[in-house]
Protein backbone atom coordinates (compact mmCIF):
# COMPACT_ATOMS: atom_id res chain seq x y z
CA UNK A 1 0.00 0.00 0.00
CA UNK A 2 1.38 3.37 -1.01
CA UNK A 3 0.68 6.53 0.94
CA UNK A 4 1.82 9.94 -0.12
CA UNK A 5 2.87 12.52 2.45
CA UNK A 6 -0.09 14.70 1.39
CA UNK A 7 -2.64 11.88 1.83
CA UNK A 8 -1.20 10.94 5.20
CA UNK A 9 -1.52 14.49 6.54
CA UNK A 10 -5.03 14.84 5.14
CA UNK A 11 -6.20 11.60 6.74
CA UNK A 12 -4.58 12.35 10.10
CA UNK A 13 -6.27 15.75 10.34
CA UNK A 14 -9.59 14.17 9.41
CA UNK A 15 -9.16 11.45 12.00
CA UNK A 16 -8.28 14.03 14.66
CA UNK A 17 -11.50 15.95 13.93
CA UNK A 18 -13.68 12.83 14.01
CA UNK A 19 -12.21 11.60 17.29
CA UNK A 20 -12.61 15.05 18.85
CA UNK A 21 -16.31 15.30 17.88
CA UNK A 22 -17.87 13.03 20.54
CA UNK A 23 -16.07 15.00 23.26
CA UNK A 24 -18.36 17.95 22.52
CA UNK A 25 -21.28 15.74 23.51
CA UNK A 26 -20.05 15.65 27.11
CA UNK A 27 -21.18 18.87 28.74
CA UNK A 28 -20.51 19.74 32.32
CA UNK A 29 -23.74 20.16 34.30
CA UNK A 30 -24.06 22.73 37.03
CA UNK A 31 -24.84 21.29 40.47
CA UNK A 32 -28.53 22.16 40.13
CA UNK A 33 -28.80 20.59 36.69
CA UNK A 34 -27.15 17.41 37.90
CA UNK A 35 -29.47 17.28 40.92
CA UNK A 36 -32.53 17.80 38.71
CA UNK A 37 -31.44 15.03 36.34
CA UNK A 38 -30.95 12.59 39.21
CA UNK A 39 -34.22 13.55 40.90
CA UNK A 40 -36.18 12.89 37.72
CA UNK A 41 -34.63 9.47 37.38
CA UNK A 42 -35.73 8.44 40.88
CA UNK A 43 -39.46 8.67 40.21
CA UNK A 44 -41.63 6.34 38.11
CA UNK A 45 -45.29 6.63 38.97
CA UNK A 46 -47.41 3.52 39.16
CA UNK A 47 -50.82 2.74 40.58
CA UNK A 48 -52.38 -0.06 42.56
CA UNK A 49 -56.09 -0.92 42.45
CA UNK A 50 -57.39 -3.36 45.05
CA UNK A 51 -60.65 -4.57 43.52
CA UNK A 52 -61.45 -6.54 46.67
CA UNK A 53 -61.81 -3.23 48.57
CA UNK A 54 -63.82 -1.23 46.04
CA UNK A 55 -67.45 -0.73 47.10
CA UNK A 56 -68.57 1.11 43.99
CA UNK A 57 -69.37 4.42 45.73
CA UNK A 58 -68.03 6.37 42.75
CA UNK A 59 -66.52 9.14 44.90
CA UNK A 60 -63.31 8.81 42.88
CA UNK A 61 -65.10 9.56 39.62
CA UNK A 62 -66.86 12.56 41.15
CA UNK A 63 -63.60 13.90 42.62
CA UNK A 64 -61.73 13.35 39.34
CA UNK A 65 -64.31 15.24 37.31
CA UNK A 66 -64.32 18.18 39.72
CA UNK A 67 -60.56 18.30 40.18
CA UNK A 68 -59.69 18.08 36.50
CA UNK A 69 -62.51 20.30 35.18
CA UNK A 70 -64.13 17.58 33.08
CA UNK A 71 -67.72 18.66 32.20
CA UNK A 72 -69.76 17.00 34.94
CA UNK A 73 -72.76 15.89 32.91
CA UNK A 74 -70.98 15.07 29.65
CA UNK A 75 -70.61 11.31 29.00
CA UNK A 76 -66.82 11.47 29.28
CA UNK A 77 -64.58 10.78 32.24
CA UNK A 78 -60.89 10.24 32.99
CA UNK A 79 -61.59 7.41 35.39
CA UNK A 80 -64.60 5.17 35.82
CA UNK A 81 -65.84 2.25 37.88
CA UNK A 82 -67.26 -0.91 36.28
CA UNK A 83 -69.59 -3.32 38.03
CA UNK A 84 -69.47 -7.03 37.25
CA UNK A 85 -72.08 -9.49 38.43
CA UNK A 86 -71.49 -13.14 37.54
CA UNK A 87 -74.44 -15.53 37.74
CA UNK A 88 -74.70 -19.30 38.15
CA UNK A 89 -75.13 -19.82 34.40
CA UNK A 90 -71.61 -18.42 33.94
CA UNK A 91 -72.82 -15.16 32.38
CA UNK A 92 -71.12 -11.90 33.31
CA UNK A 93 -73.34 -8.83 33.61
CA UNK A 94 -71.46 -5.53 33.53
CA UNK A 95 -72.38 -1.86 33.61
CA UNK A 96 -70.95 1.54 34.42
CA UNK A 97 -73.75 4.13 34.40
CA UNK A 98 -72.23 7.63 33.89
CA UNK A 99 -68.88 5.96 34.58
CA UNK A 100 -70.06 5.25 38.11
CA UNK A 101 -70.08 8.97 38.88
CA UNK A 102 -73.16 8.68 41.12
CA UNK A 103 -72.21 5.30 42.52
CA UNK A 104 -74.16 2.08 42.22
CA UNK A 105 -77.36 2.47 44.22
CA UNK A 106 -79.62 -0.04 42.48
CA UNK A 107 -79.23 -3.76 41.88
CA UNK A 108 -80.59 -3.47 38.32
CA UNK A 109 -77.98 -3.81 35.58
CA UNK A 110 -78.96 -2.15 32.31
CA UNK A 111 -82.62 -2.35 33.42
CA UNK A 112 -82.21 -6.07 33.97
CA UNK A 113 -83.32 -7.57 37.29
CA UNK A 114 -80.95 -10.25 38.54
CA UNK A 115 -82.14 -12.68 41.17
CA UNK A 116 -79.75 -12.36 44.17
CA UNK A 117 -79.86 -16.14 44.61
CA UNK A 118 -78.34 -16.62 41.14
CA UNK A 119 -75.33 -14.39 41.82
CA UNK A 120 -72.08 -16.26 42.37
CA UNK A 121 -69.81 -13.24 42.59
CA UNK A 122 -70.02 -9.48 42.26
CA UNK A 123 -67.30 -6.87 42.31
CA UNK A 124 -66.34 -3.37 41.19
CA UNK A 125 -63.33 -2.53 39.04
CA UNK A 126 -62.01 1.05 38.83
CA UNK A 127 -60.28 1.92 35.57
CA UNK A 128 -57.97 4.76 34.60
CA UNK A 129 -55.01 5.51 32.35
CA UNK A 130 -52.35 2.81 32.64
CA UNK A 131 -49.44 5.25 31.95
CA UNK A 132 -47.87 2.55 29.76
CA UNK A 133 -44.14 2.20 29.21
CA UNK A 134 -44.89 1.66 25.51
CA UNK A 135 -47.90 3.94 25.05
CA UNK A 136 -49.65 3.20 21.75
CA UNK A 137 -51.41 6.59 21.98
CA UNK A 138 -48.07 8.45 21.91
CA UNK A 139 -46.72 6.46 18.97
CA UNK A 140 -49.62 7.41 16.73
CA UNK A 141 -49.72 11.15 17.50
CA UNK A 142 -48.82 12.87 14.22
CA UNK A 143 -47.85 16.21 15.78
CA UNK A 144 -46.01 15.39 19.01
CA UNK A 145 -48.85 16.66 21.19
CA UNK A 146 -48.82 13.70 23.55
CA UNK A 147 -45.71 12.38 25.22
CA UNK A 148 -44.21 10.57 28.16
CA UNK A 149 -42.59 12.57 30.95
CA UNK A 150 -39.43 11.52 32.83
CA UNK A 151 -41.56 10.07 35.63
CA UNK A 152 -43.58 7.86 33.30
CA UNK A 153 -46.81 9.87 33.06
CA UNK A 154 -48.30 10.40 29.60
CA UNK A 155 -49.51 13.98 29.10
CA UNK A 156 -51.46 15.76 26.36
CA UNK A 157 -50.36 19.21 25.18
CA UNK A 158 -53.65 21.08 24.80
CA UNK A 159 -51.98 23.88 22.82
CA UNK A 160 -50.48 21.51 20.30
CA UNK A 161 -53.19 18.82 19.91
CA UNK A 162 -55.07 19.10 16.62
CA UNK A 163 -57.92 16.83 17.78
CA UNK A 164 -57.46 14.22 15.07
CA UNK A 165 -58.47 11.42 17.43
CA UNK A 166 -55.83 8.85 16.41
CA UNK A 167 -54.75 8.39 20.03
CA UNK A 168 -58.34 7.83 21.15
CA UNK A 169 -58.53 4.97 18.63
CA UNK A 170 -55.07 3.63 19.50
CA UNK A 171 -55.52 3.21 23.26
CA UNK A 172 -56.39 -0.45 23.92
CA UNK A 173 -57.91 0.51 27.27
CA UNK A 174 -60.27 3.16 25.93
CA UNK A 175 -59.15 5.73 28.50
CA UNK A 176 -58.88 8.63 26.06
CA UNK A 177 -61.75 10.83 24.99
CA UNK A 178 -62.41 14.06 23.15
CA UNK A 179 -62.68 16.97 25.61
CA UNK A 180 -65.96 18.76 24.78
CA UNK A 181 -64.71 22.21 25.87
CA UNK A 182 -61.07 22.27 24.81
CA UNK A 183 -61.69 20.24 21.61
CA UNK A 184 -58.58 18.15 22.19
CA UNK A 185 -57.83 14.60 23.33
CA UNK A 186 -57.93 14.20 27.10
CA UNK A 187 -56.97 11.49 29.55
CA UNK A 188 -56.04 10.70 33.14
CA UNK A 189 -52.59 11.98 34.10
CA UNK A 190 -52.56 10.72 37.72
CA UNK A 191 -53.40 14.37 38.63
CA UNK A 192 -49.94 15.48 37.53
CA UNK A 193 -50.43 18.87 39.22
CA UNK A 194 -50.98 17.11 42.55
CA UNK A 195 -48.42 14.30 42.50
CA UNK A 196 -45.63 16.70 41.53
CA UNK A 197 -46.49 18.74 44.65
CA UNK A 198 -46.39 15.70 46.95
CA UNK A 199 -50.17 15.32 47.08
CA UNK A 200 -52.15 12.22 46.14
CA UNK A 201 -54.32 12.10 42.99
CA UNK A 202 -57.92 13.23 43.65
CA UNK A 203 -59.25 9.69 43.16
CA UNK A 204 -56.78 8.23 45.65
CA UNK A 205 -57.52 10.90 48.24
CA UNK A 206 -61.28 10.52 47.90
CA UNK A 207 -61.26 6.72 48.18
CA UNK A 208 -62.46 5.86 51.67
CA UNK A 209 -61.57 2.19 51.36
CA UNK A 210 -57.94 2.27 50.20
CA UNK A 211 -58.88 0.59 46.93
CA UNK A 212 -56.85 3.10 44.89
CA UNK A 213 -53.22 3.89 45.72
CA UNK A 214 -50.31 5.65 44.06
CA UNK A 215 -46.79 4.18 44.00
CA UNK A 216 -43.34 5.42 43.14
CA UNK A 217 -42.02 2.26 41.52
CA UNK A 218 -38.40 3.43 41.70
CA UNK A 219 -38.53 3.69 45.50
CA UNK A 220 -38.21 0.19 47.00
CA UNK A 221 -39.26 1.55 50.43
CA UNK A 222 -42.58 2.89 49.11
CA UNK A 223 -45.26 0.80 50.90
CA UNK A 224 -47.38 0.51 47.74
CA UNK A 225 -44.36 -0.44 45.63
CA UNK A 226 -43.62 -3.16 48.20
CA UNK A 227 -47.12 -4.58 47.71
CA UNK A 228 -46.68 -4.57 43.92
CA UNK A 229 -43.27 -6.25 44.28
CA UNK A 230 -44.20 -8.89 46.84
CA UNK A 231 -47.86 -9.70 46.25
CA UNK A 232 -49.72 -11.23 43.29
CA UNK A 233 -50.83 -8.44 41.01
CA UNK A 234 -52.10 -8.40 37.44
CA UNK A 235 -52.37 -5.84 34.66
CA UNK A 236 -55.05 -5.33 32.03
CA UNK A 237 -54.48 -6.55 28.46
CA UNK A 238 -50.88 -7.61 28.98
CA UNK A 239 -50.90 -9.23 25.53
CA UNK A 240 -50.84 -5.83 23.78
CA UNK A 241 -47.25 -5.27 24.93
CA UNK A 242 -47.96 -1.73 26.12
CA UNK A 243 -46.43 -2.44 29.56
CA UNK A 244 -49.22 -0.87 31.64
CA UNK A 245 -48.32 0.54 35.07
CA UNK A 246 -51.69 0.23 36.81
CA UNK A 247 -51.63 -2.98 38.82
CA UNK A 248 -54.70 -4.85 40.07
CA UNK A 249 -55.23 -7.06 43.09
CA UNK A 250 -58.05 -9.58 42.71
CA UNK A 251 -58.51 -9.13 38.96
CA UNK A 252 -61.13 -11.55 37.66
CA UNK A 253 -61.05 -13.27 34.24
CA UNK A 254 -64.41 -11.66 33.38
CA UNK A 255 -62.91 -8.16 33.47
CA UNK A 256 -62.37 -6.75 30.00
Amino acid sequence: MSCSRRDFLKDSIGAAFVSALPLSAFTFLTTDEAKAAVAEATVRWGYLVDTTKCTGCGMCVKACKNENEIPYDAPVTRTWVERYVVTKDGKSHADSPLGGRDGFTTDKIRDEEINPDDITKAYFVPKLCNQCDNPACVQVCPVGATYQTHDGVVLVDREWCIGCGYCIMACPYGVRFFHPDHKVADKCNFCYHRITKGMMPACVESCAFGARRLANLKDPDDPVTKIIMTERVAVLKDEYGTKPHVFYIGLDANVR
Partner: protein
Amino acid sequence: MKRHVLHPLWFAIAVVGLILIARQFLVPDDFGVHGDSFTYNYHRLSNVQEWKDFPVKYRGNESCLECHEDNVKKHRRSPHKRVQCENCHGPSGNHPDDVEYLPLNKERSLCLRCHAELGYPESSARSDLPSIVDRRHKRKRECVSCHNPHDPREEVE
Protein backbone atom coordinates in the same frame (compact mmCIF):
# COMPACT_ATOMS: atom_id res chain seq x y z
CA MET B 1 -36.62 21.51 -20.09
CA LYS B 2 -39.94 22.92 -21.25
CA ARG B 3 -41.61 25.84 -19.53
CA HIS B 4 -44.75 23.89 -18.61
CA VAL B 5 -42.53 21.57 -16.56
CA LEU B 6 -40.28 24.23 -15.04
CA HIS B 7 -43.00 26.67 -13.90
CA PRO B 8 -44.86 24.25 -11.63
CA LEU B 9 -41.52 22.92 -10.40
CA TRP B 10 -40.30 26.37 -9.30
CA PHE B 11 -43.70 27.01 -7.76
CA ALA B 12 -43.52 23.76 -5.77
CA ILE B 13 -39.99 24.52 -4.62
CA ALA B 14 -41.11 28.02 -3.52
CA VAL B 15 -44.02 26.59 -1.52
CA VAL B 16 -41.73 24.10 0.24
CA GLY B 17 -39.27 26.91 0.96
CA LEU B 18 -42.02 29.09 2.42
CA ILE B 19 -43.18 26.26 4.66
CA LEU B 20 -39.63 25.72 5.89
CA ILE B 21 -39.27 29.44 6.67
CA ALA B 22 -42.67 29.65 8.37
CA ARG B 23 -41.74 26.59 10.43
CA GLN B 24 -38.78 28.45 11.91
CA PHE B 25 -41.16 31.03 13.39
CA LEU B 26 -44.15 28.83 14.27
CA VAL B 27 -42.49 25.89 16.02
CA PRO B 28 -41.66 26.81 19.65
CA ASP B 29 -37.99 26.78 20.65
CA ASP B 30 -38.51 24.14 23.30
CA PHE B 31 -40.06 21.66 20.89
CA GLY B 32 -37.92 18.59 20.50
CA VAL B 33 -36.86 15.24 21.95
CA HIS B 34 -36.71 15.64 25.74
CA GLY B 35 -35.65 12.19 26.87
CA ASP B 36 -34.09 9.22 25.18
CA SER B 37 -36.83 8.26 22.76
CA PHE B 38 -37.94 10.11 19.64
CA THR B 39 -41.15 8.05 19.65
CA TYR B 40 -42.25 8.84 23.21
CA ASN B 41 -40.42 12.00 24.29
CA TYR B 42 -40.94 14.32 21.29
CA HIS B 43 -42.86 17.30 22.68
CA ARG B 44 -43.02 20.94 23.78
CA LEU B 45 -41.07 21.04 27.06
CA SER B 46 -42.96 23.93 28.68
CA ASN B 47 -46.19 21.92 28.55
CA VAL B 48 -44.95 19.85 31.52
CA GLN B 49 -44.87 23.00 33.65
CA GLU B 50 -48.30 24.04 32.33
CA TRP B 51 -49.75 20.80 33.68
CA LYS B 52 -47.94 21.23 36.99
CA ASP B 53 -49.58 24.66 37.35
CA PHE B 54 -53.12 23.28 36.96
CA PRO B 55 -55.17 24.47 39.98
CA VAL B 56 -55.75 22.08 42.88
CA LYS B 57 -59.37 21.90 44.10
CA TYR B 58 -59.42 19.06 46.63
CA ARG B 59 -57.30 20.21 49.57
CA GLY B 60 -57.85 17.39 52.06
CA ASN B 61 -59.10 17.13 55.64
CA GLU B 62 -56.12 18.97 57.14
CA SER B 63 -57.14 22.18 55.39
CA CYS B 64 -60.58 22.05 57.11
CA LEU B 65 -59.11 21.65 60.59
CA GLU B 66 -58.08 25.26 61.10
CA CYS B 67 -61.62 26.69 61.11
CA HIS B 68 -63.89 23.65 61.58
CA GLU B 69 -62.01 22.01 64.44
CA ASP B 70 -65.11 20.65 66.26
CA ASN B 71 -66.53 18.83 63.27
CA VAL B 72 -63.16 17.54 62.03
CA LYS B 73 -62.24 16.15 65.46
CA LYS B 74 -65.63 14.52 65.96
CA HIS B 75 -65.37 13.03 62.48
CA ARG B 76 -61.89 11.69 63.25
CA ARG B 77 -63.20 9.58 66.12
CA SER B 78 -66.14 8.17 64.15
CA PRO B 79 -66.49 5.14 61.85
CA HIS B 80 -66.76 7.70 59.03
CA LYS B 81 -63.18 8.90 59.61
CA ARG B 82 -61.94 7.39 56.34
CA VAL B 83 -64.45 9.45 54.35
CA GLN B 84 -62.89 12.73 53.23
CA CYS B 85 -64.69 15.97 54.20
CA GLU B 86 -64.73 17.01 50.56
CA ASN B 87 -66.46 13.81 49.43
CA CYS B 88 -69.71 15.14 50.90
CA HIS B 89 -69.06 18.89 51.13
CA GLY B 90 -67.56 19.22 47.64
CA PRO B 91 -64.13 20.49 46.61
CA SER B 92 -62.99 23.40 48.81
CA GLY B 93 -60.90 25.10 46.12
CA ASN B 94 -60.04 28.55 47.48
CA HIS B 95 -62.78 28.49 50.13
CA PRO B 96 -63.36 30.73 52.02
CA ASP B 97 -61.63 33.33 49.79
CA ASP B 98 -63.83 32.93 46.72
CA VAL B 99 -66.76 30.76 47.85
CA GLU B 100 -67.90 31.66 51.37
CA TYR B 101 -70.21 28.67 51.85
CA LEU B 102 -69.66 25.29 50.27
CA PRO B 103 -72.89 23.76 48.98
CA LEU B 104 -74.12 21.13 51.45
CA ASN B 105 -75.48 17.98 49.87
CA LYS B 106 -78.11 16.35 52.12
CA GLU B 107 -79.60 14.03 49.52
CA ARG B 108 -80.26 10.36 50.23
CA SER B 109 -78.42 9.47 47.02
CA LEU B 110 -75.14 10.64 48.55
CA CYS B 111 -75.44 8.18 51.47
CA LEU B 112 -76.79 5.42 49.22
CA ARG B 113 -73.53 5.41 47.25
CA CYS B 114 -72.13 3.27 50.06
CA HIS B 115 -75.18 2.24 52.06
CA ALA B 116 -77.59 0.88 49.43
CA GLU B 117 -78.21 -2.85 49.83
CA LEU B 118 -77.41 -4.58 46.53
CA GLY B 119 -77.76 -8.18 47.68
CA TYR B 120 -74.27 -9.22 46.63
CA PRO B 121 -72.38 -12.17 48.12
CA GLU B 122 -69.81 -11.65 50.85
CA SER B 123 -66.93 -11.52 48.37
CA SER B 124 -68.13 -8.05 47.37
CA ALA B 125 -66.67 -5.23 49.47
CA ARG B 126 -70.10 -3.59 49.48
CA SER B 127 -71.57 -6.34 51.64
CA ASP B 128 -69.23 -5.37 54.52
CA LEU B 129 -70.99 -2.01 54.94
CA PRO B 130 -74.18 -1.39 56.92
CA SER B 131 -76.84 -0.93 54.31
CA ILE B 132 -80.53 -0.31 53.69
CA VAL B 133 -83.01 -1.18 50.97
CA ASP B 134 -83.89 2.25 49.65
CA ARG B 135 -87.58 1.60 49.00
CA ARG B 136 -88.16 0.04 52.43
CA HIS B 137 -86.36 2.43 54.78
CA LYS B 138 -88.00 5.84 55.58
CA ARG B 139 -88.47 6.62 51.90
CA LYS B 140 -89.29 10.32 52.05
CA ARG B 141 -86.77 11.44 54.64
CA GLU B 142 -83.25 12.74 54.44
CA CYS B 143 -80.79 10.39 56.10
CA VAL B 144 -79.21 13.30 58.01
CA SER B 145 -82.50 14.09 59.73
CA CYS B 146 -81.87 11.03 61.95
CA HIS B 147 -78.18 10.08 61.49
CA ASN B 148 -75.33 12.49 62.19
CA PRO B 149 -73.02 12.18 59.16
CA HIS B 150 -69.95 13.32 61.14
CA ASP B 151 -70.48 10.46 63.58
CA PRO B 152 -73.19 8.03 62.40
CA ARG B 153 -73.30 6.39 65.86
CA GLU B 154 -74.96 9.55 67.13
CA GLU B 155 -78.61 10.26 66.50
CA VAL B 156 -79.82 13.73 65.68
CA GLU B 157 -82.27 15.04 68.27
